[in-house]
């Protein structure tokens, strides 16, 4: 009996062990190293908190810390102000603009914030189009992009969909009967909102807000491109890239970033824990909706169109920049040209080719790891299998900067045999970094796919003579393929614009991916045109990827609704 079990478990055990080693080497050890170094005396190597004291005794770091916190909190506030009316319109009114609002929730996500940052400067900066017009018409200007304002503005326009999606879902999950029974018992108006709607929607909002906070807190690319260096992530990057990897301040900042990430994740977990407020029952469906009066409709559309313009402005600005000749102290560029695209395709194809390679390899690795982890966790009895899931998901709490610093520190002394260079400066390490960073998303996609798979479908195959391995090949993988494919496409699209970890790991220009190329170009005024053109290419990558993965998921939904067999399971 024991022998037979061992035989059946041997395959998963080997796979599980390999995954564990991969996670250990490329996630736990590098991050652990960063934490250890942060608590080590730079000269003697003793355990100490002196680095943290140094950090808080330095006014630059204190300011950076305060700025990061302020920017993240303000971004949550601004993103909430943008999201709330939109979520309210879709869930309370019968309203034709709902499709428009759903589109609003997607457009920002297909452009990484750092790509649009420079274009935003040209549109909203001190001498940007909007302020030039304001000055000409009304005689005043607004400091949209001044210092930290710029970061807050760009980040909140990019990240508000996280709040919008979570808040709309939370509101949409409230059953009409919840509202009606409250009215039946005598509550209405503000009391109804305060006592029923608000508490039911709160967990979704908090989860979205925590996500926005941490994304902004960790972001490296946007402040760098807007030339705001007095924030934590840019300080960590600058210390490591200018002073070197022995400077302890980069590590201290990393520990602070990881700490805040964990705190945010914990808050969002606590907000949702034990509060599965999906109260919609069969035949129910959302809060009571009413029709809008004409003037209300006009007002709603005005708000939506205003937000739509804001949301489209980075895309619009980027396009203008990529086709414009000279754009300075003018509402629009002086003239239009294709020269920047010609430059990109003659001198910068290496970036695009590298990106296709890196993102493709990373996405492939992610779905292989994701499928294997999902299977081991959900379909085997392997001891400690849950830790593979926890381990891979832990990457969510590790900012790209920290991965970058950790890899540099851990692998600079590790020589790769045959090619004779340190692992830390080999292009493969970029792929590994991206793989680790995107793994949590691919994993969730694979786990969702395997959870929808009824175990009896596998048991039927075994009952008819297929071994575990044959069953995986003939039944599990084909039926998971939709989820796996969706995971691949999302990983690929987001990996294509990964900047924070790669910025540190690119050892030479010829190894650099697209995001790095955009960053390089945008450093000089002359490079902005080609940089924007490259940015448009990046947006196309992500946009097409997002659309394809949306198609795959929709097709999967259709296929599932058609097959009643599994759904009928009692």
């Amino acid at each position: 009996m024991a022998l037979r079990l061992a035989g059946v478990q041997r395959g998963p055990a080997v796979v599980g062990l390999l995954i564990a080693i991969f996670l250990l080497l490329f996630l736990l050890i590098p991050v652990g190293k960063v934490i250890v170094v942060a608590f080590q005396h730079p000269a003697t190597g003793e355990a100490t908190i002196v680095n943290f004291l140094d950090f808080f005794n330095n006014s630059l770091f204190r300011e950076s810390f305060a700025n990061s916190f302020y920017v993240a909190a303000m971004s949550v506030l601004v993103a909430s102000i943008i999201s709330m009316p939109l979520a309210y319109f879709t869930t309370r009114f019968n309203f034709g603009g709902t499709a428009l609002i759903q589109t609003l929730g997607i457009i920002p996500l297909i452009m990484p914030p750092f790509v649009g940052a420079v274009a935003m400067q040209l549109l909203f900066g001190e001498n940007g189009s909007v302020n030039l017009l304001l000055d000409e018409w009304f005689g005043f200007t607004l400091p949209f992009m001044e210092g930290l304002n710029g970061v807050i503005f760009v980040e909140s326009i990019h990240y508000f969909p996280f709040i919008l999606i979570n808040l709309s879902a939370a509101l949409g999950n409230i059953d009409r009967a919840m509202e009606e029974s409250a009215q039946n018992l005598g509550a209405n108006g503000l009391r109804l909102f305060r006592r029923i709607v608000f508490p039911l929607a709160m967990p979704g909002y908090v989860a979205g807000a925590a996500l926005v906070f941490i994304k902004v807190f960790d972001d490296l690319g946007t402040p760098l491109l807007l030339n705001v260096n007095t924030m934590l992530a840019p300080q960590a990057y600058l210390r490591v890239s200018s002073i070197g990897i022995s400077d302890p301040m980069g590590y201290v900042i990393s520990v602070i970033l990881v700490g805040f990430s964990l705190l945010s994740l914990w808050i969002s977990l606590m907000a949702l824990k034990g509060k599965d407020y999906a109260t919609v029952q069969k035949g129910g469906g959302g809060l009571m909706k009413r029709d809008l009066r004409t003037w209300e409709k006009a007002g709603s559309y005005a708000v939506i169109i205003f937000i739509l313009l804001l949301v489209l402005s980075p895309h619009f600005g980027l396009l203008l920049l990529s086709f414009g000749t000279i754009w300075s102290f003018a509402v629009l560029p002086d003239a239009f040209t294709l020269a920047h695209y010609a430059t990109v395709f003659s001198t910068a194809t290496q970036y695009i080719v590298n990106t296709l390679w890196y993102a493709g390899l990373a996405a492939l690795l992610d779905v292989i790891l994701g499928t294997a982890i999902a299977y081991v966790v959900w379909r085997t009895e392997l001891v400690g299998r849950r830790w593979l899931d926890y381990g891979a998901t832990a990457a969510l709490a590790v900012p790209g900067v920290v991965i970058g610093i950790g890899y540099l520190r851990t692998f600079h002394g590790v020589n790769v045999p045959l090619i004779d260079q340190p692992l830390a400066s080999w292009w493969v390490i970029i792929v590994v970094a991206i793989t680790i960073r995107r793994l949590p998303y691919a994993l969730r996609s694979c786990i969702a796919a395997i959870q929808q798979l009824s175990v009896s479908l596998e048991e039927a195959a075994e009952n008819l003579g297929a071994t575990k391995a044959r069953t995986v090949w003939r039944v599990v993988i084909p039926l998971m393929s939709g989820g796996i494919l969706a995971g691949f496409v999302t990983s690929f699209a987001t990996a294509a614009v990964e900047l924070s970890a790669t910025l540190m790991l690119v050892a030479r220009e010829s190894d650099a991916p697209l995001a790095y190329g955009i960053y390089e170009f945008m450093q000089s005024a002359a490079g902005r045109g080609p940089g924007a053109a490259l940015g448009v290419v990046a947006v196309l990558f992500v946009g097409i990827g997002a659309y394809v993965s949306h198609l795959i998921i929709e097709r999967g939904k259709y296929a599932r609704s058609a097959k009643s067999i599994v759904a009928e399971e009692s």
Partner: protein
Amino acid sequence: MTTQVQQNAEAGVVIENLNLSFGNTHVLKGVNLSIHQGEFFAFLGPSGSGKSTLLRAIAGFGPTPSGRILIEGRDIADLTPWQRDVGMVFQTYALWPHMTVRRNVAFGLEERKIPRKEINERVDRVLEMVGLLKLADRRPSQLSGGQQQRIALARTLVVEPKVLLLDEPLSNLDANLRIQMRREIRELQQKLKLTTIFVTHDQEEANTTSDRMAVLDQGVIQQIGSPMDLYDKPDNLFVAKFLGATNIIQGTVMRDSADQRMFRTDSGTVIPLVDDTAVGGKIVFRPQNVEIRSAVAGAGVEGTGLSGVVHHTEFLGSIIRYGVDVNGDDVLVDHTHRYGESVFRTGDRVELTIAPEGILLLEG
């Protein structure tokens, strides 16, 4: 143990001292069972009784049990599910949605490395047998519930398993289809003379299909026998209650002045017993073994006649079920309903006669 196996050389499935636990929960407690070759056998019990767990243990799914499972004399307890050669039809059918009907049915033959030509022939033959050859190129999602059920059956039968296991195969069908499918399954089983185990919580399904059945409760086999035996002569109160409406009245056995064995209920009613050996503190009788008539004023209690008051009536179509209060004991009485015949109403005084041969004495 060996002698038992030799005795059961004819046996299709023998289960010896099977114990199984989910973690700390002991689900099957020392199950012993012998099913004849070619027999249609039912596992009947309420949910949580362990019947499905027992069936899955035979197929090799779920936690590893202790004890022995023999199929045609061979111990299969150490084999993996794919080595066992027992065919299982799942409650949800478990048809693979990414394969056509034909690919679904061919699956088991492909895994057995049968030549393609023979696979095609056998698949055609089995689809013909279940009457769905014309749907061979459809996807499972394009089939009705009954058709899916037949395909699931065909997919299992095509590999010619030694034993057919059916896990609540009718529970996802509507009432009419259920009756039709249980006949079809029974006819198919008779034709193929295939040893079949059928798991159900529905006593009518078990009664109508099986040669013999085992009633399970809390992981223990309560009784094994033919459906009629179990209904008429339940070994214990659980079996008596599970197989249909029944009267259970508490009391003590005594003898009257003529040395006739009598049963005195706790409320004081005295009922004569015919069986002279049985012992127990409860009498059990089915509602249809009680006759009901109007109480005639002045007539005393004679024979097993009891007098009481109707306090509850239920019209069930072919019968009317009365609840009669006899000195505080609630007695159910089934009376065949015929058009035009008078019925009793709540509050009517009635007299009951219990057929003496229909009275069982049970412990508990």
